[in-house]
């Protein structure tokens, strides 16, 4: 019999309950497996489970606690992750037909860090094919459903993690963000999603899409849960040459200290030009953005309008060039030998990448430093964090956003990453936070962006908002 109260506990709550021995790891794992069996199919979010291993590890976790060992912060907590995090001997299909039998011979550093914290790895969650797409559609493994309403997209590419966490099937989950793939589904499903600073979290053992833009981070139901998971997975890794050694503050210790006097920037125009970053925002999403800014003002923050650097306007396009070139390079052999094994949307995106010249690619990489420096100076010399939307439109249905059935949606498809992709390009930390609901009853989130390695500031700011504007999941279908 499923214990819904147990499923609805946050990651922090279940961790505390386990350490206090109010519940055993075996009980929690059995409950999770029952939930996944009962409700997983309706969301189509589960790629595969490791039930026997999970129960054996849960038994060991309980025994360790009985014998008086000092538990890690996630001792005995079951988690599921996006199907692109490698574990030796376990299939990582990456949402594809091509890798359906791929068994890696290494384990992702992020998973090893979760292991060390005591977490139990009980399965993998579906995703967009090779993580290349923001809507969540997948022609190979089927579309994941949004727990708020199964007719709507969950967002992608971390579609399974978003659906599973919002649907109380996992207490948190690791995703990846190359153009918005953590923040976008977090916004669609009413979750907190962290894209850390480029280099803050090792990508070793995670499927590469675009090595200059790939970020690893968590999706959770609360800000504290997100801070906890980020704390655990962050840090320099000798296996990832792009990870940086940076001091790692305790993301949780100052999280309750408020935001009195904090300067929050709202982007306006590019330079002195006529167009602005928020020009194409849907009125319903804009309404939720304004509501969230009113909450921040009431908490003592100062909200100021701020023009963005003129060159920031091209950051989305530059990111698309880099992602296109790097992903096409990674997929070159399969593209040559088995193009028919890709879904048509993935193949189209990879095809675009093959058509860029080496000069286009290098220009996009070289411009990144120039745009970053201008952005840091013109934005973060004036404000502490930047506030922006995540998804520019209300969450669409699966049907209306399927470009095969509705070719007209392609116009929106290019717009979807407008607010997220530029911050992958610049590598800045960005945290997606639930703001409210649009008229279709689906969630809409905002993101907070900070200077490099200032994740702690983002968690503190988001936590202040969350306390004032508590979020619940009243419409999530549990039956």
């Amino acid at each position, binding site marked *: 019999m499923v214990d819904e109260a147990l499923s609805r506990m946050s990651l922090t709550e279940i961790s505390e309950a386990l350490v206090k021995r109010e519940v055993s790891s075996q009980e929690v794992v059995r409950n999770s497996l029952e939930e996944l069996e009962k409700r997983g199919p309706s969301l189509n979010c589960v790629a595969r489970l490791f039930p026997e291993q999970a129960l054996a590890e849960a038994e060991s976790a309980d025994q360790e606690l009985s014998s008086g060992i000092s538990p890690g912060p996630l001792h005995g907590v079951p988690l599921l992750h996006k199907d692109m995090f490698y574990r030796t001997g376990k299939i990582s299909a990456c949402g594809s037909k091509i890798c359906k039998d791929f068994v890696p011979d290494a384990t992702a550093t992020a998973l090893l860090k979760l292991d060390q914290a005591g977490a139990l790895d009980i399965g993998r969650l579906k995703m967009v094919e090779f993580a290349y797409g923001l809507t969540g559609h997948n022609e190979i493994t089927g579309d994941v459903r949004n727990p708020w309403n199964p007719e709507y997209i969950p967002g992608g590419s971390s579609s399974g993690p978003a659906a599973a966490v919002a649907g109380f099937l996992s207490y948190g989950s690791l995703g990846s963000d190359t153009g918005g793939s953590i923040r976008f589904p977090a916004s669609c499903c009413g979750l907190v999603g962290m894209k850390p*600073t*480029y*280099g803050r979290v090792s990508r070793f053992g995670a499927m590469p899409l675009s090595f200059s833009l790939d970020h690893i981070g968590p999706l959770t139901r609360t800000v504290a849960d997100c801070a906890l998971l980020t704390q655990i997975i962050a840090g320099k890794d000798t296996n990832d040459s*792009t990870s*940086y050694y*940076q001091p790692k503050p305790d993301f949780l210790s100052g999280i309750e200290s408020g935001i009195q006097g904090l300067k929050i920037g709202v982007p306006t125009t590019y330079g002195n030009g006529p167009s602005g970053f928020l020009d194409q925002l849907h009125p319903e999403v804009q309404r939720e953005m304004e509501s969230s800014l009113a909450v921040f003002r009431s908490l003592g923050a100062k909200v100021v309008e701020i023009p963005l650097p003129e*060159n920031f*306007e*091209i950051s989305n*396009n*530059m990111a*698309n*060039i880099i992602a*296109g070139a790097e992903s096409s390079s990674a997929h070159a052999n399969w*593209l*040559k*030998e*088995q*193009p028919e094994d890709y879904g*048509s949307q993935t*193949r*189209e995106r990879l*095809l*675009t990448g*093959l*058509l*860029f*010249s080496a000069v*286009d690619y*290098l*220009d*996009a*990489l*070289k*411009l*990144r*430093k*120039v745009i*970053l*420096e201008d952005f*840091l100076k013109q934005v973060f010399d004036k404000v502490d964090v930047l506030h922006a939307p995540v998804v520019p439109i209300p969450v669409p249905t699966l049907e209306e956003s399927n470009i095969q059935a509705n*070719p007209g949606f*392609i116009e929106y498809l*290019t717009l979807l990453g407008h607010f997220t992709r530029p911050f992958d390009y610049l*590598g800045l930390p960005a945290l997606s936070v639930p703001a409210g609901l649009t008229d279709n009853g689906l969630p809409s989130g905002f993101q907070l962006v900070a*200077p*490099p*390695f*200032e994740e702690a500031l983002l968690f503190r700011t988001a936590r202040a908002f969350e306390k004032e504007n508590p979020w619940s999941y009243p419409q999530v279908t549990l039956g």
Partner: protein
Amino acid sequence: MKNKWSAFLDQNYDVPEVQFALKSVKILTGTKKRFLKHLSFETEPAEYGKALSAYKLDIQLEEEKNG
């Protein structure tokens, strides 16, 4: 070895996904031209990483300098 991807392109030049890809490339590459003049001759891609990782250190040094 036969390059199946090239064959795919040749056979599908007029299909929407190929046409869309060609159009995308033109749009994406066209926007960078006016900003390229800001790149010096010596600019290297790796300078981005330095700018990102040194930002906090630079701020701290400036704060110390300003007392």
